């Protein structure tokens, strides 16, 4: 090897081609310099835009001349740089980028004299002709592979996987022709080494290939995770994790691995991945949410609630987003995040709601009450309103949130606070409620017809009654229960209602089951209130009604039997028992009722229901024997 390496001496450029090359290299340097400054600012964006425009200008200059072999490597490199910068700035692939690629390929074919009549070829055919062209110069290959990797990225991001597989097969030559496995094809694609004197690129072919590979593995892993193909999801996600992931992506991949392992029944391994995800340390929310699900599955409530608490905190922290790197990165090739995805964490208030409702469901009433009050304050205070949207769509609507808060407060033994929450709800929505003047007028006219009210109004009265009852104020409690019942018997279930202004908020409709259960709950509550003021006949009426409304209701039946027994009306009790036995022995159907109602109904269970029923059974048999 007797070649002398001549150091690059700055000298006058010999030709236009050199000039253009220098311009390209200068622009690449500028872009790299700009990329180092990570703080996002409009100035940076404008500078990047300027560089992009200069690349565009350079490309126009080059493409203004007839395609020529010596200029082709530079032209392709400039095209690649232009596309990379453009996609990075737009944070996606604009549709017309395909035209840039197509134009370049056509110019390559022009130099091969192969274009001729086949001008109307599609991209697929163009790639085929270019890559199968026999007279391609070896120095053209690196730039061509770079362009091919950009094409691969574009096809991946637009879900043209069939085209992508064909392109990769062509690029790899004939060895793996039969393989349809994109992952394998991507792995076996080796781009030719770049020449030391080649014009600079922002991102070379092999780097781009790695990005496409990782992005593909990630996409595939996720898809398989959602469709439930867990083992292959695991391997795809492992592939993605071993690739060149940016840190936020790595957190997602580790979390997805955790989800996958949890579903496969290896919670310990899942926990390891979640810990790893937390250690990456850019975003904590996805692994925390996943951890809460994992602990819930394991039945470890305190760890679950702890994770949710941390999640709410993690979501409250605002972090400054990083500026785009001016390169094509993995996240550019991924589909838009979907709220239905298992990694979607939602907002802070959604996390808070999850925490509060889980506390309530887990029977930690005091904690639940505190969290509900926190959440309401967050939503209503308006100190920093814009970062705290309401928990819907996944969660309940706002009035239900109030009701759940009130239920939690009652359960936590804070009836006074519950009353405050209820009053707040009614006062804030007073404009939506029927005017009081109408109510009064109807009363004056003697018409008992009451206007329809939203269901939550009745529910509020129910909870208010319960709160008063807890405060040992039977008079108030009775009046609230009665008002609740009056409203409830006016309400029309959703499916029976005639269509009225369907585009507007259905203020007055509710589900059938919820309405029925609300009525039962109100009747039993009032009955119990009568019982405690020892007015058993009135109580009996209410219990009887509750059983009539919902024949299988165990609580109502037990209270009815108890009252009948107390009133010493054994025959009626026996008759009822015979009739109700069939209903009662059946498993109670699992209703889906709002959480506040579920909580409320749990209060109504008689403490020793089973023993009571057994007692009846035996006493009945005895009486029968007699």
């Amino acid at each position, binding site marked *: 090897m007797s070649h002398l390496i001549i150091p690059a001496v700055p000298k006058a450029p010999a030709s236009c081609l050199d000039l253009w090359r220098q311009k390209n290299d200068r622009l690449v340097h500028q872009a790299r310099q700009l990329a180092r400054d990570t703080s*996002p*600012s*409009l*100035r940076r*964006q*404008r500078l990047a*835009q300027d560089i992009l425009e200069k690349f565009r200008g350079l490309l126009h200059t080059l493409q203004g001349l007839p395609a020529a072999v010596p200029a082709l490597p530079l032209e392709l490199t400039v095209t690649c740089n232009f596309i990379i910068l453009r996609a990075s700035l737009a944070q996606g692939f604009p*549709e*017309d980028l395909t035209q840039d690629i197509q134009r370049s390929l056509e110019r390559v074919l022009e130099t091969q004299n192969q274009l001729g009549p086949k001008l109307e070829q599609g991209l697929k055919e163009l790639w085929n002709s270019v890559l199968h062209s026999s007279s391609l110069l070896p120095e053209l290959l690196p730039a061509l592979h770079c362009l091919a990797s950009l094409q691969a990225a574009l096809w991946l991001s637009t879900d043209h996987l069939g085209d992508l597989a064909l392109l990769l097969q062509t690029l790899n030559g004939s060895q793996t022709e039969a393989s349809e496995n994109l992952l394998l094809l991507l792995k076996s694609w080796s781009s030719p080494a770049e020449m030391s004197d080649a014009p600079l690129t922002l991102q070379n072919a092999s780097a781009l290939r790695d990005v496409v590979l990782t992005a593909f593995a990630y996409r595939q892993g996720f898809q398989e995770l959602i469709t439930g193909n867990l083992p292959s999801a695991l391997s795809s996600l492992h592939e993605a994790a071993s690739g060149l992931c940016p840190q936020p992506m790595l957190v997602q991949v580790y979390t997805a691995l955790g989800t996958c392992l949890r579903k496969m029944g290896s919670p310990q391994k899942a926990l390891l991945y979640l810990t790893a995800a937390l250690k990456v340390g850019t975003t904590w929310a996805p692994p925390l949410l996943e951890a809460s699900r994992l602990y819930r599955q394991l039945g470890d409530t305190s760890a679950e609630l702890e994770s949710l608490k941390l999640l709410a905190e993690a*979501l409250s922290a605002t972090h400054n*987003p990083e500026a785009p790197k001016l390169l094509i990165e993995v996240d550019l090739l991924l589909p*838009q*995040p*979907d*709220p239905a*995805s298992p*990694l*979607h*964490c*939602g*907002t802070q208030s959604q996390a808070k709601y999850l925490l509060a409702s889980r506390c309530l469901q887990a029977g930690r009433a005091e904690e639940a009450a505190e969290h509900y009050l926190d959440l309401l304050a967050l*939503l*209503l205070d*308006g100190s920093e*309103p*814009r*970062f*705290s*949207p*309401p928990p*819907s*769509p996944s969660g309940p*609507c*706002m*009035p239900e949130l*109030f009701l759940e808060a009130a239920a939690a407060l009652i359960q936590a033994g804070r009836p006074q606070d519950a009353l405050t929450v209820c009053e707040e*709800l009614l006062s*804030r*929505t007073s*404009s*939506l*409620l*029927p*005017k009081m003047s*109408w*109510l009064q007028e*109807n009363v004056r006219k003697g018409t008992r*017809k*009451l*206007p*329809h009210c*939203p269901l*939550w109004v009745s529910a509020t009265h129910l909870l208010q009654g319960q709160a008063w009852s807890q405060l040992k104020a039977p008079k108030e409690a009775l009046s609230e229960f009665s008002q609740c019942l009056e409203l409830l018997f006016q309400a029309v279930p959703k499916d029976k209602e005639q269509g*009225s*202004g369907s*585009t*507007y*908020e259905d*203020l*007055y409709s509710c589900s059938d089951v919820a309405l029925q259960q609300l009525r039962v709950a109100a009747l039993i509550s009032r009955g119990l209130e009568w019982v405690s003021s020892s007015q058993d006949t009135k109580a009996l009426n209410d219990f009887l009604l509750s059983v009539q409304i919902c024949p299988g209701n165990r609580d109502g039946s037990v209270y009815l039997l108890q009252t009948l027994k107390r009133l010493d009306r054994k025959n009626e009790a026996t008759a009822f028992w015979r009739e109700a036995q069939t209903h009662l022995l059946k498993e109670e159907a699992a209703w889906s009722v709002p959480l506040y109602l579920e909580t409320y109904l749990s209060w109504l269970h008689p403490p020793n229901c089973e023993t009571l029923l057994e007692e009846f059974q035996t006493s009945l048999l005895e009486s029968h024997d007699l």
Partner: protein
Amino acid sequence: MAGAASRVHYLTDFCCPLGGPAAGRPRVLCHEPEVFLSTGREFVYVYDQEGGQLTAVFQFPDQVWHLQLLAPRRALYVLCARTGLYCLALDSLSRSLSQASEDKEDEDLPSPVIPVDPDACVLPDATLCAFTVVEDMLITLVQGPTQWKMQLFERPCPGEEPRPEGQIGEVELSTCTPPGGVPGKSAAPCFLPVLCCVLPPGSRALHGQPQGFECFMLEEALFGLLFGADATLLQSAVILCGLPDGQLCCVVLRALVTSRSAPGDPKALVKILHHLEEPVVFIGALRTEPQPEEAAGGLLPGEDVHSDCLVALGHQGRTLAIKASWNNSGNLVPELREYCLPGPVLCAVCDGDGHMYHSTPSDLCVVDLTRNGISWNLEKPDQAIGGLPSTLCPDSLNICSVVTLCVSSRAPTGGTELLALSAKGRLITCSLDLNSEEPGPARMTMANAGQKIKELLLDIGDVSERVSFLKKAVDQRNKALTSLNEAMNVSCALLSRQEGARPISCTTTIAWSRLELRDVLMATCVLENGSSFSLDQGWTLYIKVLTSSSALDLDGAGSTFTYTIPVDRLSPGSRREVTLPLGPSESGVLDLPVTVSCWLFYSLREVVSGALAPSDPLEIPYLEEYPLNLPKQEVVCLPLCKRTVDMLQCLRFPSLASSPAQASCLPGPVREHVETFLETCQAPHSDLAGPASLRAKYLPPSTASIRVSAELLRASLEDGHSGFSLCSATLQWLLAENVAVDVVRASALSSIQGVAPDGTDFHLIVREVAVTDLSPAGPIQAVEIQVESSSLADMCRAHHAIIRRMQTMITEQAAHGSSPPDLRMQYLHQIHANHQALLREVQTLRDQLCTEDEVSSYTAAQKLLQVYKQLRNPSLVLL
């Protein structure tokens, strides 16, 4: 509304072409004495009403689409087309402005044009189509390739370092394709979406904002009803959005705050309130009933108006008004009404007193939605608490072509002052005192006389502008009506007389003529106007030439040529002649029969659109954009005539020398002399000889014959052919539409030798025969027509043509009720059975042709030809 007195003041003139559909998104805003104005071009003007002069002109890189002023912060937000959103800090600008004017004191320019600093661009986005600023949030609407996308940002401030990543939320609106494509690539979209913000009652954001413009407060009931309990409980602002496709949708702002990792779910966030089915151009709100506080003791000056009625206006004038009311049982229900106002609506605005002003190219109208409006139902005043008028009666203010409007913040007490920009670029104020009586003639003093005269002159100018526009429109409409009337008369005349001579007729004749060294069969259609109406603009003669499919191509459907010839003023009694070539084509093939049909077409669009579209697009910028409401069938079509050209009409007889036109014609397609020479020079056994000559040489000529009873022929030919033998009469009858018929008649020929269009020989022989074995009553006298040609195709065509004539003749005769002689049924049955068998064979052979390979298909084809030949020479006689 007796005295809708208006006084118009002319402020200044922006001598700039505002028109053209591409421009035309002018805006005007008013704050205290300052008026901010964009004319649809790339300038934003600041005009000082007190000083009466322009104080600044800002130049943007592209058309300005929208302006919004955030008054308390003295910040002006400007949406620049295909560029993005700019924010100008007015205070710092006025400082730099005074600086600039000091520097350039010696120059004459009253206000320097300041190019806007690119640093003032706070949100660069080429697809941005609309925005609105609420509190400290910025809501934008961008146009994606398939969807509108609403985005929520922290409001960028002019002084601060802007944060490009300050996006808080995002949701996609509708899935329909926005018209006009992506603005970055194609021309500007015709209509921009409209955004406005609805605040819940009691919020404090409105203070200092220009009232009633893009931001208003709704009363509790309507707010809750429209946007739901969640929005009410959260006391969240709601963004209303009117899209060019007519959708009116809303997004609760607090719910739009989405997590950074995913956009919002449109199903949960976006609620469609209504669909106007035409581009939404304005959304506003009104107070139609006195506010409770007001009723009690007058509204405090600083108090916010809680509007109780939401209005949305479509481009064609369709108007939606929504109010909340209570039904009989006391429930809150929406009251929703649609009205139709005169369109196309250029712009609209609501004032604080329940009036809505909307501008069309011809007028500025005011609509009263309050209870004291004219159409208020006076019979049952106590029927409902709320209520909307059943119809709207717009009152004209006699100002035309206002392209943008706003309510002036310096309104005089007891009235409204509008600030308007006319299509010609005039900024005017319009003071309205809608409730007062017409002011009596005031005493004129010397001091105000000049002012008064100026005002009057301005009024006159405005009225004359309006008059000229209306006059032009009326003229055009009159013209269109006259034209439509004539068209109506013509249509009636043509359609009422289906039989017999029609007032407007079209006759078609055919003749051979020589064109470019080729013999071409020409059809001449003569349109004759025998009616008393003239055919004017809008009428078109439409001729369709339909050739039958080629004999060689079994499945071919034949080709159709259509010719449309505009009938440009055909006065009564005149005629127009159109000559069209029918063939043969370049390859020498003439696929007979050819059908020539003529219609008259009348295009409604051509006539009516002239009247509806403006002649001067600069004058009425928006008129062009609205579609014509023409009926679906935009064309009236009147059939005139139909003529079938068959083989018999195209035969030429060079042997009959007495026809000079034909004698000069060379038979067949033209042949170069050289070609002829070369052909003769060819060796006798050469394969290159044409197939036709080969066939002529080696194959016997194809023949076909038809027998018709002499009685039948005699009966149908009795008139007009007396003195001729039956054979000659028959031949004359067959060639009646041929040019050679005169020669045939003159020489009383009974057989004739001619040339087919493609040059092959052709022989037509008519002779009398006696058919013996058919009738028990003895032989039947019959005429046999024999067709002979060396070309099978020509023979077939001629046979077909003769059969067609026979069919017509027999149907005519059948109508006369002639009775056929007795026939020997046995014999007929036999013939019938024979034919059935032949037809079956044809069917099987044809099937074979389709399925079998080449060799066997060749034999099948041979057989088929044989069978066809038998079929063509039946032993039957037409009786």
